């Protein structure tokens, strides 16, 4: 084990002091000092699956796109058909380069006819802002980075709605999955959205100014205590999204990957009118079919599978693990991996080369975990 490097100063969220006081292990995540875990990542993971967890996601990028042609700009700049999204609803979408390679995966909220909120991964926020700004040329629309103004808190888990209900003026029963409206939470104005990255029901609370975050965090923790709510770190968030089969940019998605490779071709709206960045390349990719396939692997043994481990079929290398961890819910090591297209569970005996030792695995469809409704 080695000591952490003393790199350049890390950015911190408005909740940094709260995490410190809670005794969180803090790590550098995309240039932000963020909580990795508070007590133990497996207990935090289980709390989200069975009760609820509270996450600080204030490192995410928030970009406002406004103006008479905001919808037209997003239809041109992103692969989705954002002009068709109703006010108050949200979409999972992507921004690609002209060659169809993914620059980031995004959630876009339509706040009003001419007002969209684009939420980008922290590591890509600057690149997304630059691409949107460049693509806005000729559109009557304004692209504005508001990341520094926002704090983002997520409450996720089966008890999330019960915890949040007494703290908000919103009737949570009327907020559908992938919808978001302006409401109040703990007396503060907030964009309250039913979105998340855990595979559970839950809400994301966008707060401006972000300095309101500590008060809202404290109110949620207090209201959640009888429900078993605990603060949860990035480590639990990663295993939760992995079990839910959700891609992570930098692991399953990168500029060398198209949405089709990741099995997410459904986000590319080739039938929308007009040109958009990446259209020609993505039409060709859709026609040709992907060369590889994102699959799930479940280990038969107990040794964890890790990113970068080669995937073998009857001893022949056919792919590579993109994310791997022991699954707290399944009690077994799981992984996502890209393998050659055309391979399925009947193609042969699959294994993963974990530092020189072949571990037997079963190839399964994603996700590993789906919540009961």
């Amino acid at each position, binding site marked *: *084990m080695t*000591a952490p490097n003393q790199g350049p100063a890390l950015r911190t969220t408005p909740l940094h002091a709260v995490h410190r006081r809670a005794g969180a*292990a803090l790590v550098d995540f995309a240039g932000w000092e963020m909580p*990795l*875990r508070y007590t*133990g*990542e*497996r207990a935090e993971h289980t709390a989200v699956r069975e009760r609820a967890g509270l996450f600080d996601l204030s490192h995410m990028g928030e970009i406002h796109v406004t103006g008479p042609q905001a919808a037209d700009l997003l239809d041109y700049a992103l692969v989705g058909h954002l002009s068709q999204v109703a006010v108050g609803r949200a979409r999972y979408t992507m921004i690609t380069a002209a060659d169809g390679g993914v620059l980031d995966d995004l959630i876009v909220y339509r706040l009003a006819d001419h007002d969209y909120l684009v939420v980008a991964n922290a590591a890509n926020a600057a690149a997304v802002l630059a691409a949107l700004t460049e693509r806005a040329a000729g559109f009557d629309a304004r692209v504005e980075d508001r990341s520094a103004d926002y704090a983002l808190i997520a409450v996720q888990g089966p008890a999330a709605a019960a915890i949040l209900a007494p703290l908000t003026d919103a009737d949570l029963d009327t907020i559908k999955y992938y919808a978001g409206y302006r409401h109040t939470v703990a007396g503060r104005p907030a964009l309250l959205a039913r979105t998340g990255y855990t595979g559970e029901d839950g809400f994301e609370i966008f707060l401006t100014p972000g300095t309101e975050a500590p008060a809202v965090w404290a109110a949620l923790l207090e209201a959640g205590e009888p429900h078993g709510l605990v603060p949860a770190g990035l*480590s639990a968030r*990663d*295993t939760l999204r992995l079990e839910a089969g959700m891609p992570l940019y930098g692991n399953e998605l990168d500029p060398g990957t198209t949405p089709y490779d990741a099995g997410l071709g459904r986000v590319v709206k080739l039938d929308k009118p007009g040109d958009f960045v990446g259209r020609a390349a993505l039409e060709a990719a859709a026609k040709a079919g992907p060369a590889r396939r994102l699959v799930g692997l479940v280990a038969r043994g*107990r*040794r*964890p599978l*890790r990113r970068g481990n080669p995937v073998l079929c009857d001893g022949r290398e056919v792919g590579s693990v993109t994310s791997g*961890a*022991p699954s707290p819910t399944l009690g077994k090591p799981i992984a996502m991996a890209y393998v050659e297209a055309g391979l399925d569970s009947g193609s042969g005996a699959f294994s993963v080369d974990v*530092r020189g030792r072949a571990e037997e695995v079963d190839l399964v469809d994603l996700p590993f975990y789906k919540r009961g409704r």
Partner: protein
Amino acid sequence: MSVPAELHYTSEHEWVAVADGVATVGITAYAAEALGDIVYVDLPEVGGTVSAGDTCGEVESTKSVSDLYSPVNGEVVAVNEAAVADPEVIGTDPYGQGWLFKVEVSEEPADLLSPEQYTQLTEGEG
């Protein structure tokens, strides 16, 4: 962080207790805390020989893989099968139920750290 006075330590964050020619080895509370939840451990084979400073196994947490080093020369005479079956104990009781392996030492181990030296090391890293 707990650093029992009766043990010896290594800069790889392992502890060693020598009694009657047998060295018992585990990881320190500092290491367990830094790793987070321990989910898998790979230990040397009983009957095999280990050399001081060489890797002889792995300790894995949710997020990371750490090599296990033998702090001593000798023959492995026991491994903690209970910790292999349920690695959580390594984190909850690193100096007791969470011990990892025992080595019959051919000679008295040298170059180990005293509790004071180890405390100084971890404070430097923290």
